[in-house]
Structures are given as structure tokens and as C-alpha cells.
């Protein structure tokens, strides 16, 4: 069974209140990502916010973030993710949850 999943189509259904140019999650060191063998954030994030790039590091775009905390948990050994909630009222806003 090989089913192509378009994560953008899923996220498109959601309501976000975007805090322009104030990402609530940051990667601390690119070098750390480069030497990270698993780059597990690129697999585990349910919103595909992390993607491998040509430079061999990881690009983070938090626009679709669901604020679950998974990336922080998986990267805790390297402590390479600085994780916070968005400002009050911003970010994902579930209509149903």
C-alpha cells in the first residue's frame, strides 16, 4: 500500500492566527543538525515543519505548527530546539479539537 500524503492539504483545513515573523520554535545550531544522524524531527513532526535541505541541515518553518511538543521531546539529548508557546491568542486555533 503506497499512499501519497499531502500534509499541506491537511493543514489547509486548520485555522491559524499567524504571529508574523515571531516563530515560537528555533533551531539553536545548524552545525548540530548537520551532525545529527537521525534528523528525526523531519519524520516525527505531525505538521512536517522540519525538512532536510541541500546544505545537509534542517529547515524549520513553523507556520503549520500544531504546538504538540514532539520535536522538543525528540531533540532533548542534543537540546538543539528552543521551544516556546506562541504569544497568547496566536498559533493553531482548533474549532473542534
Amino acid at each position, binding site marked *: 500500500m503506497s*499512499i501519497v500524503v499531502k500534509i499541506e492539504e491537511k493543514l489547509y483545513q486548520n485555522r491559524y492566527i499567524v504571529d508574523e515573523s515571531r516563530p515560537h520554535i528555533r533551531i539553536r545550531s545548524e552545525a548540530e543538525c548537520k551532525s545529527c544522524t537521525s534528523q528525526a524531527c523531519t519524520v516525527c513532526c*505531525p505538521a512536517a515543519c522540519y525538512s532536510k535541505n541541500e546544505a545537509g541541515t534542517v529547515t524549520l518553518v513553523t507556520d503549520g505548527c500544531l504546538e504538540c*511538543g514532539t520535536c522538543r521531546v525528540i531533540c532533548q539529548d542534543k537540546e538543539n530546539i528552543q521551544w516556546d508557546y506562541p504569544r497568547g*491568542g496566536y498559533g493553531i486555533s482548533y474549532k473542534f479539537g
Partner: protein
Amino acid sequence: MVEKFDAIVIGAGPSGNAAAYTLAKQGLSVLQLERGEYPGAKNVQGGIMYAAELEKIIPDFRDDCPTERHIIEQRIWLLGDDNYIGTNYRSDAFNTETPNRYTIIRANIDKWFSEKIRAAGGLQICETTVTELIHDAAGKVIGVRTDREGGEIHADVVIMADGVNALLAKRSGYQKELAPENVALAVKEILFIDPELIQQRFGLKGDEGVVIEIMGKVTKGMVGTAFLYTNKESLTIGIGCLISDFKQGSVPPYKMLEDLKNHPVIKPLIEGAEMKEYAAHMIPEGGYKAVPQLYGDGWMVVGDAAHFNNAAHREGSNLAMASGRMAAETVIELKTAGKPFSAANLAAYKARLDDSFVMKDLKKYRNLPGIMHENKQFFGAYPDTLTAAAHNWFTVDSVDKRTKEKEIMKSFVKKRSVLGLVGDAIKLVRAVR
């Protein structure tokens, strides 16, 4: 002049709502802070709501609580690649005036609960993220700081009901980061569909509902479960696995969900439904051994933030409400007696929990998380073997039944030695005894 309340509750999920309502109803001055646009905006649940705990807090909740369907049938399915084996339990006795379990849409419940809190005199402020706890020189919690301007507020006691991430307790050094093997990541979707189709496909009338808990090949050998629940005009479908397993694997969570939706057994049930929201949330599943320090000078922690979740029974919101209520009752008791909110006095909260189903159930299942984690055969080999056995048994092909029995036994032993089988049975029994 910094404002001061009897109590501050951080978070407007079931645990915070239970706490804030109980305090407000007793006339205490309570401030509840929620970072979402409205209560529920950040929250995710399957969701089954268990009536008992809500009933203790709001006895006549059924008058206006926006529940979806009362559950008359529970199915537990083990999915193979293109099949399932399972048990169903349906009873007309679940059609009572006071049903025990309902499906719910989480945002609706949180909003409803919040109105009750405001009506009881509680002050609730949304769109406000608490950034840290404020401590006095002796280390006692005396209030919170928020991301609003001049956002410092004081209280005699602070109840942290901020959910599984529990950032505030971590920042204050009360908790460590969650271990990946102690927390699951779940993704879910809500699918809108003609209610008549729901009734036809699941054999329901009126507000009757069915819930299906799913295990098996759909979690691709990882420790996890899935679900499909019926709401009034929608279905919810979701799947979750331990983060330690996602971390080692190569399948993203949304791919797993998509495969579940396309499973030949599931697909016909959701055919034609329209997806309206995709959500993700962590679930604390480390059980008893992962429960952190629950109180200290001027603070308590409740709900998911305290790791109160019974993964074996898919219970979370009820433990959240129970712990929120018990924290509030502890506050009320101390306040009435004029005693300070010291760690020594707040230990009464822990005593209440120990004496309740919250800690008793967590303790009963204390070894289960470890066993599931170390014994992947429950999620890999068993589903295959069981469904193959059923397939063999129900295929009428002129092979005599004794030979079939032997074949089935052989297939079990092939996947797992006899000792392994016996060992697994013993482990499971021990874990849930």
C-alpha cells in the same frame, strides 16, 4: 499595585476547568488564564467523555452540556493487513436517562464548561500565555507572569493545569523533560458526514453511538493504538504511538493516519466524509512511575501536566477533572481553616489522590508501559498470527478441524516460541493485575 487572587488556575482544559469551577462555586476569588483564542482552541481529545467525574462537579450537566452521542457499543479491533478480528459489546441497557459515556467534540465542551465558571463568578482571561511562576525569596510560588503588558499577578496558590507539555513546572525545576518512551504523539481528523450514513453504517438510531478502539498492523509494529468514534454529524479517526518509536522509525504520523483511513476495513466506514480539521497532541503514557512531584510551597499540578493518564483504558479527561476538583477541594479546606498553602499543608492534595481511582488505577497498571515498550510482539507478530488463525478457522475448505487447530497452534509457536507465548501471557496478566 499587583492584583491578587485566592487562586490562579493556569489552563482551561478539563483539569483547570474542574479546579476553577469548584473554587468559584465556593466563593473564592479565582483567576483562570488560558493561552488559546478561546477555551479549547489548543486542546485535542478523541474523544470519549466519562460522565461520572463531570457529574460530581456539575450534577445536572446533562441539561445543557453539548455532548455528541451516548455510547451503546464498544468495539475492540485488531487489524491485520486487509482484515480484522475483534470483539464488540453492545447493550440496550446503555440507553438510559443517565448514560455513562458520551462521544464529544472537545472545543464545544471546553467552551461550555468555561461559561459555567464565569456564571459561578470565576474570572477567565484567554489569549494570555503564562510565561513563568513568580517565587518569593524563600522559593514559595506567589503568582505568575504573563505575556501581557504589566502581566504580573499574585495569588495565595497557583494550580498548574497547563497540559502535557507542562512548561511552567519544567522552568521552575519541578519536572524533567518527558522521556520519549513515556509519551505518545497522536494525530486525528474530524470527518463530517450525513448523520443518516452514520446510523446506517453503524446500526444506530437517534443519539446512539459506537466507538472502535483499534490495534494491530496499522501502527506498523510501533507501540500504539488507533480509534474511530461516531459523533452526531461527524466521525473522528486518529492514531498514536510512543514518541520513542516514531523517533526510531521512518513513517511520519500523518502517513500512518492516511494508511489507517485507507485500510480496507476502515475505508468503507468513512467513505464520502469530508475532512474539516487535522490535529496533533501528545498523551502522557508513562503511568504511575512517571508521575512527578505534585505539590510544593504555593503550588499544585493537575491533569495531563501531572501525567495523570490511564493509557490502557484511554482515560485522561476524567483523571484531569478528578485531580482538578481535588486540588480545589484542598484549597477550600485550607482556606476555611485559615491555614497557609505550604507544601506540608498541600500534601493533603496528594493524600486525596492516593485515596481515589486516579492513583489506584495508575498504580495497578504501573508495569504495563514498560512491558508494552519492551515487547513489540504485541504490536507486530500477534495481529498477523491472530488474523491468520481466524482466516484459517473460518475458511471452509475440507481440511478437518483438528488439523486446522494444529496449524493454528504451529503458526503461533513459529512467530513466538511456546515459552515466549506463555511468558507474554504472564507479563500481561501481571501488568494488569
